Each structure stands twice: as C-alpha cells, then as structure tokens.
C-alpha cells in the first residue's frame, strides 16, 4: 500500500475525499481485503486520536458499503457475518451472550469465512463492526468444544512457557447453566472494606465464589 492510498483513506474517513475519488476507493475496497483492514484501522485510530465516539466518514461509508453489497445496510451485513458458516452453531443465552459478545468485541473472535470463498460480506462487516453502532451487538458463531480446546491449549502452552491465548478466551466458554451465581450478590459491607491491594471491590476472603 503506497502513501497515496494511505492519504486517500485518511481523507476518506475524515469526510474530505472528493466524491469521484471516494467512488474509486470504495470500488477498490470491494476487491481488496487489505484495503478494508487498513480503513478499519484508520477509523479506530481516528476515534482515539480525536477522542470521538464516531468518525466523520462512517455514516457515508456505511451507506456506500450497503450499496456495494446489494442494498443491505451495514447492520444487515454484520448479521450476515454472524450466520452459520458451515460449523456447528449453538447460540448462547442470557449472561453468556453478554459475556461472549463483550469479549468477542475486545479480543476479536472471528471464525473463518465460508469455504465457498464468498467472504465479502463478512469482510465488509469486519470493517463495519469497528464502529460503535455494531461492534457489540453481533453474537458470533461459537463451537463450544472448540473454545474449550483453545482455552486448554492456552493453559498448557502457558505452563510450558509459551504465551497462549488462554486469557483472551476463557470467558467465551461461559454458559448460563454453568455459572455459579453467588447467593447474595456480594457480601454486606464489601465495598466499605476494600482489599489491601488490587481489585478493591472483590469479595472478602471466604466468600463462596
């Protein structure tokens, strides 16, 4: 990717790219996954640098991408990305969904595209999900056995000195029936008696957690 393209992307996410150049850039994005990834990076970096909750070009980007993928809005595309892709899918429920989605959003869980190679919608959605509007609302397909394997791999490889992905994924395998809810939310007076270090709001020693 050359500097001219980078400048184009930067101008585009700032809403400053002329229409004719924006059209060209969008067409290229439709064929170039690396370009889409780069745009996603710019969107995120722009938000951080400017302390904004949204980016000037994002609404326009959403509309234009919707046109490129056949009239669907970005939200629709994101849902499409979450649809089964040939793997065993078992949607989680309740708190498990919340936990999974939150950590999916942070740690970037994304299963492979369908084997037919029709990856454009998920890839476009990957760009879209970097926006506040969609990033935390799309459950991902989860193969529970596979997640247990990822987690176990992380644990054992960590034991042997290799950095695993354990810490990124442990919560993903939560299921509502497996959670052991504390009887009384938190012990009385807990907040008034913080621990001496670290997580000051954690339950006191002896709490049956």
């Amino acid at each position, binding site marked *: 990717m050359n500097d001219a393209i980078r400048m184009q992307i930067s101008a585009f996410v700032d809403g400053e790219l002329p229409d004719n150049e924006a059209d060209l850039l969008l067409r290229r994005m439709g064929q170039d996954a690396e370009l889409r990834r780069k745009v996603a990076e710019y969107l995120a970096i722009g938000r951080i640098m400017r302390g904004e909750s949204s980016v000037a070009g994002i609404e326009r980007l959403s509309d234009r991408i919707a046109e490129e993928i056949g009239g669907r809005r970005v939200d629709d595309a994101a849902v499409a990305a979450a649809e089964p892709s040939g793997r065993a899918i078992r949607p989680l429920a309740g708190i498990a969904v919340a936990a999974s989605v939150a950590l999916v959003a942070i740690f970037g869980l994304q299963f492979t595209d369908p084997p037919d190679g029709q990856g454009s919608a998920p890839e476009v959605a990957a760009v879209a999900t970097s926006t506040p509007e969609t990033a935390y609302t799309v459950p991902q397909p989860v193969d529970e056995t596979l997640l247990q394997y990822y987690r176990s791999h992380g644990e054992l490889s960590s034991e042997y000195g*290799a950095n695993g992905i354990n810490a990124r994924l442990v919560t993903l395998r939560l299921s509502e029936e497996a959670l052991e809810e504390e009887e009384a939310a938190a012990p009385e007076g807990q907040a008034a008696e913080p621990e001496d270090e670290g997580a000051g709001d954690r339950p006191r020693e002896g709490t049956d957690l």
Partner: protein
Amino acid sequence: MVPLRSPLFAGLVLAVGHCVLPAAAMAGSPDPLDWLNRMGVAVQTTSYEGTVLRMREGRAEALKVVHTVRDGVVHEKVVAQEGDGLEIIRSGNEVHCILPERKSVLVEEWSDQSTVFSTLPSSDIRFGNEYDVAIVREERVAGRKTMLIAIRPHDGYRYGHRLWLDTETGFPLQTQLIDESGAAVEQVKFADIRFDVEITESKLASSYQTEDFRWFTQPSRHTGHSVDTTWASSSLPPGFQAIATHGESLPGRDEVVTHILYSDGLASVSVFIAPQDDAHADGPASVGGSNSFSVLIDGHQVTAVGEVPAATVEQIATTMGQL
C-alpha cells in the same frame, strides 16, 4: 541476523529477573537477543498507563490500560473505550470482568502475565533452528523512539514477529504477528503511554460500585495429568516436537481427552483426541492468528489448535494416527 537457537536464547530469557544488565549498556546493543532479553524484563516489571489499540482481521479495539507489578504480582485495569464499557480488573491471577450494563461481574483466574500482550515471543522454552532474529531500524511509536526487531521464520509453517521496543526501557510499544505474505495477522499498538506516572489504588479500582451486581464464577477449570499415548503425527512440520501429553477432563464432558502439545520453541500447537463427537464439525476455524483444524480419524475426533498458519494445524491434524 542471529538464528534463534537453544540454549543461547533460552539462557538469556531464563536469566530474566535474575541478571539484568544496565539499561544504558543494553540500549545500544547490536545484539537482537539483548533486546529481546530487555523486553522480557520490561514486560514483567514495568508499570505504565496508556491507550492500546488491538487490531485483528480488520477489527480494531481501543483499551485504556493501567498496569503495575508489586512484589511480583500483576495489578491491572483494562477498560474498553467503546461499546458497553467492559472493565477488567486484575489482581494477580484473579480477574474480575465487570459488565456494567448487565450489572454483572465474572470472576476468573488467568495465568498469563499481561492482558494486553498475547503474541509476545517471551517463551523460556527452547528455540529451535526455525527462526532468525534481527535488528531492523529505529522508528517512533507513541511519540517515543523504538528499535524494530524482527523474528523471521525459515518457512511458512509458523508466524513471524515484529517488535517495536522502547529504546529507553525495552518495553514493546507495538507488536505484530506476521504471516507468510508479510501481512500483520494481529497487532497491538500503544497510541499513548506513560511510564513515569504513579499507579495508585484508585487508578486500579473499578469505576463501578459492584456490590449490587450479580457475581458469577467460572466453572471449574479442566483438570489434566501426564499420560502416555500411542497417538502421534507421521509428518510433523520441521522443528516441532511433542513436549507434553496430558489426559484432560473438560467442563461438561464425561470422556477424557488426550491433549498433546507440540512446539518449535516459539510457536505451539495442541492436538486434542476425543471420542467421535457429532456436534463438533470437521474442518478449519480461526480466532485471530490462531487456527484450528478438526478431522475424524479411526473413530476419534482429532483437533489441532495453535498460533500458527492454517496449513500447519491441518498438516498436523490430518497426519495423526495410532502407532
């Protein structure tokens, strides 16, 4: 360029925390292994406060991170800057994932040293002859001067790493996991960072009053023990060897799964061998830079998982068999 070999690198990394050369002496070192050694020390001992961007497969998330180590114990607060305001409060291995919108706290136990870095080659196990490490050039990241270090694999069976290490502290301000085409599979980058701030208790405390929240704990972790196995790969990629074999009971499953861990000294691949499971699909899947491949062999579901390219887990999984 220096090949990563045991026991040289292993010795350097094992020396972390025991024999630290003066930073000034190391800062200008022409030896890339010195830089990796400094990084190992910095990650385990440095306190910092900053904003991290994590980028994987087109997704980018911003996290505010406060991190300190006291008496060898990690204390950390990570706050998602978008979405539902998820907070992760960590004290040692105990981790509280606070979901404010759900008024819930998930209590977990994590074993690694940092919530932020998952792809650092800080392994203290032995490196084989499968990588070279080199100093590339100086660059600036987050407004600070860094040295770019490249760890390059000799073939396409494993990923490479690029590390931008702060010249003053050795701390990794940017890391990339690199695939065969040279593209970054995963990236962690500080947009801003400060090392000279005091990390107080209040900075590490949750932003929420959680006493009225619902508290949950993770179900018991899997239990494992070393076992012998007749399963092995007939065609392991070069440099990989089995370093552990466990029998494991996983949550919600009755049967014991055989877990074989292969490593080339830096990358690792786990192979799980379980009785045939109709609910578990064959084929590839991926999470960030981690790939898996599952296949049915002799009435067993064989699944390979690791932070390696898809072709590597496929080759290992499909060549497993009983001796």
